[in-house]
């Protein structure tokens, strides 16, 4: 049970962190 929850939460965290980083890079590129 715990491992399954960790797997789904970890996947969500990976994608959220990625899109936050992507958003920051897009904003920075627009400012250049």
């Amino acid at each position, binding site marked *: *049970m715990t*491992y*399954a929850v*960790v*797997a*789904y939460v*970890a*996947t969500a965290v*990976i*994608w959220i962190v*990625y*899109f936050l980083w*992507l*958003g920051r*890079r*897009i*904003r920075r*590129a*627009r400012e*250049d």
Partner: protein
Amino acid sequence: MSVTIPAWWRPAGRALWGAALLLLAASLWMIAHAPIEAQMGIVQKIVYIHVPSATATLLAFGITFAASIAYLTTKNWMWDAVAATACELGLVFATVVLVTGPLWARSAWNTWWTWEPRLTSFLILWILYAGYHVVRASLRSASRRTVSSVLGIVFFVNLPIVWKSVEWWRGSLHPRNVTMTGEMRETLLLSMATWTVFLAAAFVTRLRLEWAREAALAPVAERPTAGAPGRVSA
């Protein structure tokens, strides 16, 4: 090719994200209600995220391969942008595979990691494509696109090795095929469709970064004007 984002790009992106989020909600509902596997119990549900992420990884790196060939053939910057975009998303999917796999393996094999063919070749795949981005980021010259494209083609050699590793080497612990029936099979197929649409939506969003970077490099006369339909904006 123009550095202006086409007017239809943003609505297309919104439509894809709408479809991806709807599918994600339906997929999570299906996963929650799918039968619990008799031997492994609820941990088996990791498969519904692990397998679709693995297929999305292979699809993304396949796009990188095809777009890299297209760039070397045409020298159109857009193909390089497509290759880099797909490669970055493939790497995120591969990271998901490498995180969820050991969580499943701990229950199935009583170990987090073993140096068996599928796991080892997939880790090599991750390292190679991470290297693609390291090399790409380190080059600022005109050769950056050509070098990236060559890497995108050369590294693709590892994909069939990952795919066939469970057949080519004896003693592979990794399951050869995921054989499911009924509700479990439907849940897996829906998850695969969901993450494929998610890849497409993320691709549309990530490509805007390449457009924005290209617009910043373009001569002032060629830059999209503020307020124009295709301007690079959030």
